[in-house]
């Protein structure tokens, strides 16, 4: 168990340091556009995405760096994407909000809140119609739960008993609007009852709890009885994006949540158990720093797509499937 927990800690640290590097690169204007950081929420992506099988699919949101990294999308391709380079995981057409990878079955990076849910339902429908035992994991936030597309999709997936994991990252704010100001029922897990969807809520700051809850959800889905709604209660430590003065929440609230930092807490726990030492953590930091440095080097060395290729990929270049 400990070795596994150490691996989870490592994955969370990877995301944290990667995101910190993104802030730096944003400040030096290497990364532009919107940049939504995952800092604080690492336990959700690590605990959930690592449970998926290679042929399961993921539909994520514009805050998808964590999911992409855990899924194994090349950090270099991710970084190059944010640089806008041709070597990026969407050839520089997507940027920070739109990572795609056919090999890893990552279907975006959807930046319309709630917009990824209907396609996720359809992907699960295709799997069911073709008798494949795959799951589509659809990630969205508390904001999406207020969208009509959430309700339509939950109803449809339940009606047709489709293998969808509805993974709600409830970080308490829809951009700057607090949960209590956006939902009449703030216990989001209750919404699943209306659609007869099995559900659970879990501490999203505890990677082991997220992992256990995800495994339970996946076992349920794979048994063929229908979708599952998993609410992970988490918190974003940083601003919504790089253009956010954070007027809507107090510093004290953020500091309070930081006491529940999934990385430092798991790290302290593993140290107290004697599972890791400070030297192990230093080694982990070195490994992560090296991986990130290589990703940055890859992005720096990347090339710009020729402007003559601007209108490629509007329609398919091959003519037959």
């Amino acid at each position: 168990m400990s070795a596994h927990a150490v691996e989870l800690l490592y994955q969370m640290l990877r995301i944290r340091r990667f995101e910190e590097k993104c802030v730096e690169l944003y400040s030096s204007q290497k990364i532009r556009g919107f940049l939504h950081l995952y800092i604080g929420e690492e336990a959700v992506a690590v605990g959930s995405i690592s449970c998926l099988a290679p042929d399961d699919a993921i539909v994520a949101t514009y805050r998808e760096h964590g999911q992409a990294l855990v899924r194994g999308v090349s950090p270099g391709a991710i970084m190059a994407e944010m640089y806008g380079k041709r070597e990026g995981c969407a050839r520089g057409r997507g940027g920070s909000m739109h990572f795609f990878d056919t090999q890893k079955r990552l279907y975006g990076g959807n930046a319309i809140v709630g917009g990824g849910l209907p396609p996720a339902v359809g992907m699960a429908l295709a799997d069911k119609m073709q008798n494949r035992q795959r799951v589509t994991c659809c990630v969205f936030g508390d904001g999406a739960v207020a969208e009509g597309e959430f309700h339509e999709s939950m109803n449809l997936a339940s009606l047709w008993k489709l293998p969808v994991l509805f993974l709600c990252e409830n970080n308490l704010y829809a951009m700057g609007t607090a949960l209590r100001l956006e939902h009449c029922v703030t216990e989001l897990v209750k919404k699943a009852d209306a659609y007869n969807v099995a559900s659970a809520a879990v501490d999203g700051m505890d990677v082991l709890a997220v992992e256990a809850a995800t495994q339970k959800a996946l076992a349920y889905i794979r048994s063929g009885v229908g979708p599952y709604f998993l609410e992970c209660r988490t918190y974003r430590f940083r601003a919504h994006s790089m253009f956010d003065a954070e007027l809507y929440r107090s510093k004290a609230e953020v500091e309070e949540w930081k006491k529940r930092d999934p990385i430092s807490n798991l790290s302290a726990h593993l140290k107290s158990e004697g599972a890791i030492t400070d030297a192990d953590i230093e080694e982990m930091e070195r490994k992560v720093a090296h991986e990130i440095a290589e990703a940055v080097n890859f992005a720096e060395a990347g090339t710009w797509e020729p402007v003559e290729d601007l209108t490629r990929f509007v329609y398919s270049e091959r003519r037959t499937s």
Partner: protein
Amino acid sequence: MKTMTYREAVREAIRDALRKDERVFLMGEDVGRYGGCFAVSKGLLEEFGPERIRDTPLSESAFVGAGIGAALNGMHPIVEIMTVNFSLLALDQIINNAATLLHMSGGQFNVPLVIRMATGGGKQLAAQHSHSLEGWYAHIPGIKVLTPATIEDARWMLASALADLDPVLIFENQTLYNMEGAIPAEVASVDIDHARVRRAGDDISIITYGVGLWKSFEAAEKLAAEGIEAEVIDLRTLRPLDNETFLASIAKTHRVLIVDEGWRSGGISAEISARVMEGAFYDLDTPVERVCGAEVPMPYAKHLELVALPQPETIVATARKMVRKNG
């Protein structure tokens, strides 16, 4: 030759696709047990079962989005939306997902999805069931917009749309479903990229699509009785728009009249007019004219709806004025 209605032609096209390819399925509101709100899919549920003829909840965004997801994951769905007006509830999926995924993913994820819907006015269904928004969809890069006007195109365009790797929207004018005619029992293939000259003439080019084709034919017959020969061009596809066919016609006739049920401002008629200016300005003997839908939400009362839509009489009067002016 085989005689059938436009409705039967669409049904035959769907049946054919379902038989030939297991990845094809039909989903939408009331397509199964009800038989389709325009009775297009009547009988298909009995033949293919509820897995492939799927009744959906009234959730346009979810079932159109589900069509996108199914297409991404190996199926070839045909999604039916009752009318174009309801498709607005699914705009996010059509425009933000179907039209963008290929480009946004750097060419990785194409969406081989067909969405069919009824369009157009003329049946006293008022302002939420009568509009022609196909030209508006033609504004969007990443999708294709087909407007079969003939029974033959209703029968054969679907197969080409399904063979396409990208999202295709098919607009069926609701006044055409009962139209009957004889078409060849088999065709090799039907292209969905080109306009067709449906009636040859030397005096004026009438560019139209959908139900406008039939109104233009009627007008052309009346004009012929006056000695004016109109060339009638059926665009068939609004995106990609085939300039070549109408520019070639204009080089011969030197006059252009565009007939479109859609609204004039910012509509497909405006786009065609702009392309005529860009590609045939010096061929023109007279300014381009348009007969379009009046710029009002569609009224219910019959006499008002009649004048809100292009009619053969208006087409005749406009064409006559254009030809006589410098004939």
